[in-house]
């Protein structure tokens, strides 16, 4: 059990590094240029070198800040997003812990992220950071409801909260084919929860000079950074588990363990999609964002549940 936890944590760092590299390369090629090329073969060590640089920077604590809150912010942002990975079934035998209420656990952990942003924004004693933090809170709260409602549709179909059983229930047909609307709603809300473009107002670079993490330097900033990528990974893996059939795929030798290969392919496909969205669309204005959540996503997800319930009853 402890072994699994250690593996997961070290795996997360590797994953964040991989995703960071992938994002910069894709961003480069979308903009008709190469991404990082200097360090390593085609820049593959770029994020490692960046990490070393960030660790080596001075940990500034500005005057007049609430020291406890200031230091607590990044830690609070990074830790709760690792925990959901303990319950995700990477393959048939590779799951750290199969909780009966796995999905509920995941949702509650991702909600702590809101508090982390608020703590960081408030503790920075900076008007810009406070702005970013307040926007983030409103955004996260508004987008949690469509996430829950779209997950609810899958739960109705699979009849269980445990992630392992949800994956096993997709033996015959993946849920994305039965619930396309829930999938779309979940992906959009997931992107909004992780504060990625086009919903990245809390860290709107051109308006608020980096929003709630303006005052952080070095390790604090890199913790936020890692937290954001891990959050993206969590959202993508939950989407894979719920809709894309988890580790199901054409059978491989040692199928119980190597199901992880299919899992990762699906997760990285979703991550590729999320990265592409960031580099294509402009930012949504704040009230339009909330408008979209309340007027479009919530009614559609409610209607989706209604239809699902009716169909199941019949």
């Amino acid at each position, binding site marked *: 059990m402890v072994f699994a936890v250690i593996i997961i944590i070290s795996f997360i760092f590797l994953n964040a590094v991989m995703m960071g590299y992938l994002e910069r390369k894709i961003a480069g*090629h*979308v903009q*008709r*240029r*190469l991404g990082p090329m200097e360090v390593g073969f085609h820049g593959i060590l770029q994020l490692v070198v960046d990490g070393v640089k960030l660790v080596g920077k001075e940990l500034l604590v500005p005057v007049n800040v609430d020291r406890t809150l200031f230091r607590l912010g990044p830690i609070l942002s990074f830790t709760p997003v690792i925990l959901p990975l303990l319950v995700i079934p990477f393959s048939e035998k590779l799951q750290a812990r199969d909780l009966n209420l796995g999905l509920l656990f995941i949702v509650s952990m991702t909600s702590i992220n809101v508090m982390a942003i608020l703590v960081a924004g408030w503790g920075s004693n900076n008007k810009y950071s406070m702005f970013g933090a307040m926007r983030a809170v409103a955004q996260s709260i508004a987008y949690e409801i469509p996430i829950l409602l779209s997950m609810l549709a899958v739960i109705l179909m699979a009849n269980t909260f445990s992630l392992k059983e949800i994956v096993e229930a997709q033996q015959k047909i993946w849920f994305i084919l039965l619930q396309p609307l829930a999938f779309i709603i979940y992906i959009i809300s997931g992107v909004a929860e992780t504060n990625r473009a086009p919903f990245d107002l809390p860290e709107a670079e051109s308006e608020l000079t980096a929003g709630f993490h303006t005052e952080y330097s070095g390790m604090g900033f890199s913790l936020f950074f890692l937290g954001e990528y891990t959050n993206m990974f969590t959202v993508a893996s939950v989407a894979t588990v719920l809709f894309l059939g988890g580790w199901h795929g054409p059978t491989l030798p040692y199928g119980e363990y190597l199901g992880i290969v299919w899992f990762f392919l699906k997760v990285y496909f979703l991550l590729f999609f999320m990265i*592409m969205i960031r580099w*294509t*669309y402009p930012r949504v204005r704040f009230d339009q964002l909330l408008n979209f959540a309340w007027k479009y996503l919530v009614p559609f997800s409610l209607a989706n549940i209604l239809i699902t319930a009716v169909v199941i009853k019949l």
Partner: protein
Amino acid sequence: MKRYFSDLFVGGKSLVDGLVVTLKALCQPIVTVQYPREEIDITPNFRGHIDLVLDPEKNTFRCISCGMCERSCPSECIRVKGKKVEGKKKKTLALFTLDFTKCSLCGTCVEICPTQALEFSNEYNLAAFSKEAFHYDILKRLEERII
């Protein structure tokens, strides 16, 4: 009510179109050049700092140290001095310096020279650690080019 749905569909379609554009750009070749490992050729018309022209027949400069360039420069960055040499009627050029930190590459000196003794060089990748590195001694640069 109809606008609600039409907004949604038109909007959704526009988002998908945009994504198709970026996906296509992802597969297209890059348009940048990895400077400084690869360099692009510079057009000969590029305006670098001025240089004295090496006259191929006389194998030396054409400058008669009249000082027109020094007087007409709006930034006052050229210094020209001539000196009397025995055996020659006119002055010969003794000093020609250019303070490139002030030059605005307007081309007045090149045009106004009566003997067309000045031209633009092609140097574009200039970097140094001090301002003095850009106080060019143009006469010395010419003398290095004389074979």
